[in-house]
């Protein structure tokens, strides 16, 4: 891949993942002044994941790193705008959602029930693998975006 191709690819990734985060921010009724932050946090997390996956890392690991990036960017943005960090983590995590794996899991599971005997076992295994992958990616997202809070906010609780 040439540098130009890589640049084009990254710009597309930034754009589409940002729009995905932005659309969901509007669905969740995030105030207008925070929309740019939502775009940014969504774009950074997903673009980082894509880059790591291009470099050969597994989707689960890449998602974890992408989600950690979303977590830290959100903490930064939350200081800047003085709003709860959850506004940016929730919208920033949306582009990382493992839609294709989840879809494959249920569709393959359905086709396994109607397939002839010898194929159904294979399909069931494929559905199982996709299901595990979906679960792993989801937990990577959740742990990743919570990471900054878990690591740095260890003070004695006030309540």
């Amino acid at each position, binding site marked *: 891949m040439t540098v130009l191709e890589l640049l084009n690819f990254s710009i597309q990734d930034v754009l589409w993942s940002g*729009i995905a985060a932005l659309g969901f921010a509007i669905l969740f009724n995030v*105030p207008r002044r925070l929309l740019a932050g939502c775009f940014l946090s969504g774009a950074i997390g997903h673009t980082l994941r894509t880059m790591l996956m291009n470099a050969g890392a597994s989707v689960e690991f890449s998602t974890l790193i992408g989600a950690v990036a979303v977590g830290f960017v959100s903490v930064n943005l939350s200081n800047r705008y003085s709003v*709860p960090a959850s506004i940016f983590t929730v919208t920033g995590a949306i582009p990382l959602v493992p839609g294709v794996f989840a879809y494959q899991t249920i569709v393959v599971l359905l086709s396994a029930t109607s397939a002839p005997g010898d194929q159904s076992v294979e399909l069931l295994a494929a559905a199982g693998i996709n299901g595990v992958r979906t679960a792993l990616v989801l937990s990577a997202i959740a742990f990743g975006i919570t990471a900054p809070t878990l690591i740095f906010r260890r003070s004695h609780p006030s309540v």
Partner: protein
Amino acid sequence: MRPFVQTPVQADKPPMDYETLRDVIDLSLWAGQLLLQHGAESQQVEETVHQLGTGLGCNWLDIFVSPNALVVTAISNGEFRTKVRRVINIGVNLQVVVEVDALVQRVLVGKLDRFELRTELERVCRFEPGYGRWTVALMVGAACAAFSRLFGGDWVIFGITFLAATIAMLLRQELHKRHLNTFLTVVITAFTASAIASSSALLHLGGQPQLALTAAVLLLVPGVPLINSIQDLLKGYMITGIARGVTGGVIAACIALGLLLAISLLKVNVL
């Protein structure tokens, strides 16, 4: 990261009279209820109630956050009073979360007394819509279409996904307005989105028809319940964490049901 506000037990606070203590408990619970209903995590709910109560004059508050009720005991100068508030899960509205958080900050620096806080909470409760319904529908359509590009779809798939998700979102808004059961709304919306997205496979439009189906139902993804669930579980709020996780799981199952209904009724080849 914003400093974690520590509120030590202050015995030197002036004792509150009956009316004031009642008002303060009422206001703190109201703010907590607003947060819990509109998608805040449990820790934020507990801290908000505690900080409002102590900021307005109580010595201490003990708060129990459960998925559908808030219980608080407020202590002022040895006297204590307990109140339960029922919480109904309405949906995600992050504007409410931002506004209530701003009010807490103002109370903590002493720039807002309980009378002003009541006026402000009444304003927040009017839920002035930030965006028109068409803006929301078109932007959600664009978000799902953007997903189809991220998954590697071509421009035809992009267009079909946009159309399917926008129409499904408009339908979802209508059903929501008519107060149809949340889970039934999800099934019907997922069915509609996938039925429209199936046109890609049925009419042989675009290269990867399964991507249109995948991306079009993503507008229903229970992102907030699932993320809040994990955050609650990791921070020790087991009951709310489990309840929210189950809610997210049921919504995901409803999406799957709507999708499977559509592809089996229309006999789409989806693999």
